[in-house]
């Protein structure tokens, strides 16, 4: 059960981090082009870019730490640094590791920007255009583990309804573990019931 919580937490933080990173990249591209969005002054876009980036790092840390302790993902600490050596879906996990490493380089050089100089910082910062497209399919592929042909563990952990539909598997979270007040619709958890039950 606590394992489930870690898995949910890892997913949630991962998605939020990815969404924030998307915003960060968009703001960065926008700032570089010289135009500003929403009528914001340039320094505000700049600060938003930085703060959203740091916030996404925070969520990413939650994502990584949760997965580190999740028994199913079965991460070794070396998976945080060396890509493609994991045990659970090593390719997709490896993409996440690559994205994490690139992001670490970007964040560290950005924090040390004034010591490194603009030139070095900018060269490393270009890695953002690499790390974001790498991070994107990581999240997408993990989400797709619920899709046909990818009936992994998350068939029940992420979407019991989806898992039942595509994998022909009843959710692990059985009716017995939940109050029977909404019996017959527990498959739809955590979604809202779609049809009013008679």
């Amino acid at each position, binding site marked *: 059960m606590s394992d489930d919580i870690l898995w949910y937490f890892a997913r949630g933080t991962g998605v939020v981090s990815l969404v924030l990173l998307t915003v960060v990249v968009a703001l960065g591209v926008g*700032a570089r082009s010289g135009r500003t969005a929403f009528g914001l002054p*340039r*320094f505000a876009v700049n600060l938003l870019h930085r703060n959203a980036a740091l916030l996404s790092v925070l969520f990413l840390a939650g994502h990584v730490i949760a997965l580190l302790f999740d028994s199913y993902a079965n991460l070794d600490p070396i998976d945080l640094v060396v890509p493609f050596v994991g045990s659970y879906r090593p390719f997709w996990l490896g993409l996440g590791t690559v994205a994490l490493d690139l992001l670490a380089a970007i964040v560290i050089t950005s924090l040390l920007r*004034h010591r490194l100089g*603009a030139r070095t910082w900018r060269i490393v910062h270009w890695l953002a255009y690499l790390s974001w497209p790498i991070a994107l399919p990581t999240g997408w592929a993990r989400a797709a583990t619920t899709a046909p042909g990818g009936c992994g563990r998350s068939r029940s952990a992420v979407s019991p309804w989806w898992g039942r539909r595509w994998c022909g598997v009843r959710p692990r979270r059985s009716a017995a573990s939940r109050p029977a007040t909404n019996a017959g619709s527990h498959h739809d958890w955590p979604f809202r019931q779609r049809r009013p039950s008679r």
Partner: protein
Amino acid sequence: MTDSLHIDWTACDGRGLCAELLPELLAEDDWGYPVARGDMTVPAALEPAAREAVDRCPALALRLVKQVQQVSQVRQPSR
């Protein structure tokens, strides 16, 4: 000892963040490059804003220099 603002014109890209953060000291020309309003001495009240402007400059073209230091850096033109 007060600080003075120094712009590295070879690095300045005219992004215009500094003039937004320090409107008391810097104006912006038509191309976004900063124009000094005065002698670029930073009053104590503006020091946090000046540090922020230095920190946020995308081209790292803005610096705070100690005025004493700056005076010692001034050299007589050679003949």
